[in-house]
């Protein structure tokens, strides 16, 4: 209860970023349902989506409590304006094909794993507990997606090219993971969680060996910049929200 009045805005924002990443990527992955290349992957993608939605529920509930304005997980998930979502742009990009989907899952899980690892020692006990639970899930997503990256990269010529194209497309959006900003520093100083720009080495250590094994070329960094975690999204976000929010917007106040 004391948290209600003491949570710093940076703390709330930090938790929203975590929650929105899980929410929005979970939403995207749930589009796959019934459309995957093999039945096992239909189930695996639904399972990943389910894990992420589960993480989002815990994280958004926590963010709502920190905020202390009485917003629950659903009000945060379904009733914010686009600029109030704090997910990484990468999470909201369209699925495109199975190649882009698994490469994204891989790049994202490789970021979530070291992040959740550090968060298990957060000074925010609730956050630490969520991280501990979610870390196992993220590790599984990383391993599952990583195996597919290797299969596609080191598969046929066609699959190699598609995997490389997916990587080239997605890579520029990963710069946003590590873009420095004051709230990260404040949150890090308070022992709540790591500054995201400190995670880049761990991320690369997880990502690069798999890409090499997949015979894929690691793209160079470019000046491309995206800003989803600051609330400035891509053109894709509005369409995702139109679908995701439709019931809550159409029937305001209803309980489900």
């Amino acid at each position, binding site marked *: 209860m004391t948290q209600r009045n003491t949570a710093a805005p940076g703390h709330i924002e930090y938790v929203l970023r975590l929650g929105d990443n899980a929410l929005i990527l979970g939403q995207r992955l749930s589009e796959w349902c019934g459309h995957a290349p093999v039945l096992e992957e239909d189930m695996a993608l639904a399972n990943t989506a389910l894990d992420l*939605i589960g993480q989002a529920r815990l994280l958004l509930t926590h963010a709502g409590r920190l905020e202390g304005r009485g917003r629950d997980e659903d009000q945060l998930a379904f009733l914010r304006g686009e600029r109030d979502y704090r997910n990484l742009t990468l999470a909201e990009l369209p699925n495109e094909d199975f190649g882009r989907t698994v490469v994204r899952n891989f790049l994202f899980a490789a970021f979530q794993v070291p992040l959740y690892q550090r968060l298990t020692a957060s000074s925010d006990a609730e956050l630490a507990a969520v991280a501990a639970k979610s870390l196992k899930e993220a590790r599984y997503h990383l391993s599952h997606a990583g195996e597919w990256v290797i299969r596609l990269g080191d598969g046929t010529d066609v699959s190699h090219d598609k995997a490389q194209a997916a990587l080239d497309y997605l890579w520029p959006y990963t710069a946003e993971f590590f873009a420095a900003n004051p709230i990260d520093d404040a949150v890090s100083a308070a022992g709540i969680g790591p500054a995201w720009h400190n995670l880049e080495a761990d991320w690369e250590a997880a990502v690069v060996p798999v890409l090499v094994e997949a015979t894929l070329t690691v793209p160079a960094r470019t000046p491309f910049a995206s800003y989803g975690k600051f609330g400035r999204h891509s053109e894709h976000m509005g369409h995702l929200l139109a679908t995701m929010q439709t019931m809550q917007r159409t029937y305001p106040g209803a309980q489900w």
Partner: protein
Amino acid sequence: PAYQAEFDAKIAAGGFIEAKDWMPEAYRKTLIRQISQHAHSEIVGMLPEGNWITRAPSLKRKAILLAKVQDEGGHGLYLYAAAETLGVSRDELYEALLSGKAKYSSIFNYPTLNWADIGVIGWLVDGAAIMNQIPLCKCSYGPYSRAMVRICKEESFHQRQGYDLLLAMMRGTPEQRDMVQDAVNRWWWPSIMMFGPHDKDSVHTETTRWGIKRISNDDLRQKFVDATVKQAEVLGVSLPDPDLKWNAERGHYDFGAIDWDEFWNVVQGHGQCNVDRLAARVKAWEDGAWVREAALEHARKRAVREKDAA
């Protein structure tokens, strides 16, 4: 022959036939057809519910629905595996689905038009499926029987979740209650039809003799109606059948005449979603061809490397 006698004796004693046991070719074929149809139904059945995952109105309901659809994929997997014990491959069975040769449950050719459909599918469609499937838990083919035990357990869970979704909506706004009633109006008769033709018009008498089918269509249907009428009352919805009423003499509910033309139209491909459902599955399969090829090619490369290293 001796094999046949042994088989007949086992069936007569209520025992299980296992994959390695001898069985009549007709028994094997019947099982392959029935199990694979059931598997296909699970897979195609992911689509009408999948249609609402991205629009689920709360995170809790979204998670429940995702888990349910994932379970259906799992049921498909057990069932294909059970069918494979009879000497066919999953791909072979799946190609028969995609080419339109194999059937799946006609119920999935109806559209999901509002959020309450998700609850009604759990309550009525899964409910009817359970009625159909519980006797299969004791069917004479061991692998099928064991798959059904597992599936029935999960289906009961889905049914309760569906009913719970509807209860929540019935406690809500008039618009929400209208959605539930609308969904019930659309799904009631198709659910009733899930038990198949009347016994007098039904042709699968061998399946009864073989211990695959243990209760008749009409008996199952009556059991379903009797159970469901009370649940509808608790829910506060009306069932769209003016002839539905308690018959004290029979100790059962009487119900109106089923529109079998409608049933056969949908079976024969003229339901609202037959074309879209199959097209969605064909597209997924074709779009995914390069992925399956990549997985095979990678496995081949890896095997060669491991052999070279040895």
